[in-house]
């Protein structure tokens, strides 16, 4: 087994263990720690797939931003840090059973498709559609510059008049601004009517 395979299986197992830890834990702070482990492992998997920019953004935004936000929410909404909301064991068995069924459906669907054969069929019919453009796995990363140019609207790898992602980029920027203003307004400190009476 090469080093890449060892690393892949290591991070795959920690990602799955973290995800199962989020479901199994009843104490919400431990769920948050398990989610941090899972998201950091997913970021490592991104790096292994030569998506270096997406992996770095995942670490910065998800692990370093969204989880911190969730921990703020936990601290603001719980009466004690280790508060548990109990659920009966019967619910746990039912949820585990349905989850296992759902996982078996998805796993069967995924493993039954021969991805390489499908790619060869596509390449036989239209060779231009099977060429991977945008980034070259042989260059081991370096996706920051092609991604940045595509967000500016340029796709030099595809040539011609291939549209970039400038419009979605601008829309998402305005969307973020509007959403954060709305969330700040929603979560402002309000005076409770009962305390004024």
């Amino acid at each position: 087994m090469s080093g890449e395979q060892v690393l892949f299986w290591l991070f795959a197992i920690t990602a799955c263990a973290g995800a199962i830890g989020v479901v199994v834990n009843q104490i919400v702070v431990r769920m948050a720690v398990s989610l941090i482990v899972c998201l950091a492992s997913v970021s490592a998997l991104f790096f292994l797939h030569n998506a270096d920019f997406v992996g770095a953004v995942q670490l910065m935004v998800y692990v370093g931003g969204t989880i911190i936000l969730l921990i703020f929410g936990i601290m603001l909404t719980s009466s004690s840090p280790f508060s548990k909301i109990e659920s009966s064991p019967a619910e746990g068995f039912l949820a585990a059973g349905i989850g296992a069924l759902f996982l078996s459906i998805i796993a069967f669907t995924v493993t039954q498709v021969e991805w390489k054969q499908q790619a060869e069929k596509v390449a036989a019919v239209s060779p231009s559609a099977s060429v991977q453009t945008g980034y070259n796995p042989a260059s081991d990363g370096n996706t920051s510059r092609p991604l940045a140019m595509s967000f500016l609207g340029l796709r030099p790898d595809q040539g011609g008049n291939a549209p970039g992602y400038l419009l979605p980029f601008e829309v998402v920027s305005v969307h973020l601004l509007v959403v954060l203003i709305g969330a700040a307004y929603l979560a402002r400190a309000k005076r409770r009517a009962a305390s004024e009476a």
Partner: protein
Amino acid sequence: MDQIGLSPVLLVGAVLFVCGVVCMTTKRNGIGILMGVELVLNAANLNFVAFSRHTSLGLDGQVMALFVIVLAAAEAAVALAIALNFYNNHLTIDVDHGDELRG
């Protein structure tokens, strides 16, 4: 990664997705439900990046993953504001107590 192929990564994404859905449906803590949503979105991101690497999807898969990360962050902010308002109104974060259709 060519030795591993596409299916093992998709299986990891499947496990994350099922854990997120079970988390969304069974947790009574409102923040726990938000964590399930984050798991589902990360499973989709993993699928996008895997297909970007192994098929002819190329850079477009990574652009989609970046947009998903941005939108998930925005949605987490709003969902947290909703959870805070719920806690202010009901004095508990247990979503089973939100069973009346009035404030």
